[in-house]
């Protein structure tokens, strides 16, 4: 990937973020969403950038995060993923799929009072590492599991 393309993508991402801000402003009738949609992170097309842009940079591997996902997913369009963080002070949990075109899947902020747990279903385009990132006490932690996909769920 050449430097010009990178710069372009970054600029495009930033412009998009502004658009997203405007969008949220328009539809904010009653519901207040705490943060603007992180376009930069969701449109990053490699794992490291996605994690960094989602503020999970420098995450340390931790065995205190339990990531449950199938070893083999027959259908990549629906892959169940369950995360439990045993790290005290967990405030958010994010999911990434390394080989998806855009690795970032979702970021869940969990205020105190909500258990450090989330379960959902995600799409995987192909066999890949599924990575979970956890923020606890201002620090970042991560855990990973490979899921083999027999039929992809992102393409068509």
């Amino acid at each position, binding site marked *: 990937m050449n430097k010009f393309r990178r710069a372009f993508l970054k600029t495009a991402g930033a412009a998009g973020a502004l658009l997203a801000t405007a*969008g*949220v402003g*328009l*539809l904010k*009738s009653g*519901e207040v*969403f*705490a*943060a603007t*949609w*992180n376009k930069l992170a*969701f449109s990053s097309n490699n794992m490291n950038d996605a994690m960094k842009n989602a503020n999970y940079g420098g995450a340390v591997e931790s065995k205190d995060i339990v990531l449950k996902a199938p070893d083999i997913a027959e259908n990549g*369009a*629906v*892959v169940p993923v*369950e995360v439990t963080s045993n790290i005290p002070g967990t405030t958010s949990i994010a999911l990434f*799929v390394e080989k*998806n*075109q*855009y690795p*970032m*899947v*979702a*970021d*869940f*902020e*969990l*205020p105190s*009072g*909500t*258990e450090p*747990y*989330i*379960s*959902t*279903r*995600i*799409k*995987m385009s192909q066999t890949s590492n599924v990575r979970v990132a956890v923020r606890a006490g201002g620090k970042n932690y991560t855990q990973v599991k490979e899921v083999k996909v027999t039929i992809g*769920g*992102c*393409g*068509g």
Partner: protein
Amino acid sequence: MADEMKMRATLQGDVADVKVLMTHVMETGLRKDSKTEKFIPAHFIDHVVATLNGKTVLDAQWGIAVAKNPFINFKIKGAKPGDKIALNASDNLGTQYSGETTVAAK
């Protein structure tokens, strides 16, 4: 829009186990229509906020890789029977979705 969101909250001790199933295409924008060869525009839920009696208990941002007809399960401490749990979601086209349920006694 009750039929677009199914919610259930059951109590386990003082923890409410909340399960939500939404109806949404979660279109990625990366798929091509097999007949027209054109990309199907992205259409996906990008924000989800849950509240317990009005207090935020979950604030999520989603991308295109959350599966179609999204399912989430989360757990809230300190809940009592009769507590109200509400969920508000919006998609990239600005459509709002909401659901509400009451914590059931065990």
